[in-house]
């Protein structure tokens, strides 16, 4: 698990109040929303806000790629890395 992957998992747990889950319980490629971890639409908004705050990046809620970036921890890490490099 890379540092960024671990950091994003910790962010998910803290921001969404997943009290019974640890970073080891979230797979890098595990689906976050609906199936998989079972997060919902309020979680999506909350996580988007947490990512924007922590990494100082802008997320366009209407952009068609945004949904893909939030698929799993690996895609979020790639998105954060790309945005920070830009």
């Amino acid at each position, binding site marked *: 698990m890379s540092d960024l992957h671990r950091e994003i998992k910790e962010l998910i747990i803290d921001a969404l*109040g*997943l009290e019974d889950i640890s970073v080891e319980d979230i797979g890098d490629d595990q689906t976050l929303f609906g199936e998989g971890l079972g997060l919902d639409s*309020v979680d999506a*908004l909350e996580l988007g*806000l947490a990512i924007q705050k922590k990494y100082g990046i802008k997320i366009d809620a209407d952009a068609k790629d945004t949904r893909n970036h939030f698929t799993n921890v690996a895609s979020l890490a790639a998105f954060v890395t790309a945005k920070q490099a830009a």
Partner: protein
Amino acid sequence: MSVINFNIAQWRAWAPGLESVDDWQAWSRQPVVLEPSDAAPDVSFLPAMQRRRLSRLARMAFSVGWPLADGRQDLPLVFISRHGETPRTFEILSDLATDQPLSPTQFSLSVHNAVIGLWSIMRGETSEMTALAAAGDGLEHGMLEAAALLDEGAPAVLLVVTEEQPPAAYSAWIDDVPFPYAVGLLITPGNQWQLSLNSTSQALSKAHWPHALNLLRTLLGQQTTCQHAWKNRLWTWQRNL
């Protein structure tokens, strides 16, 4: 004078350190203001993914209401809180004051009927539910609502009164929450209790404890009546033995 009749079939109450009937009996005999505490009631009967967003106020409401609703379907709910989710409101206002974006979770759960919405989702309950914020006599206004639901044919009505300790910033305005608490009453048709309202021309002195806690003391003690005055409204609870 207006009068309603009903039975209090069961009750539950929670405050930090006060959970069992014995705890409440001891408190009723010698009521004191509890020490400030972050303790929250156990709601492990809810799945972790469902309970994670519940504030203490919601946890208090669920902890007293859930056992009373056990095995009952089509149970209307009257939720009463004068001040509601003051900690969430305060956090939202603090974010606004510092130009921070608002938490969608805080925002969506700060409204007064959020608890009854969660209750409906988690129990699959579609009966009528009401969230009231009356003045200091919210308990009695909630009882009127419950009596109206019984009159419409509901076999039972669940009434939950709860207040959260407000953030310190509100202490100059909120002086009627000695400590966080929740009281749940399962109300059924009957004549064991009578609640009557009289109006007076002048303001009467207020009850020392919140009405729901005062009523608990009557429920647990030997008295058959208790009176709660708010402004010019005098409510008399009478137990028929």
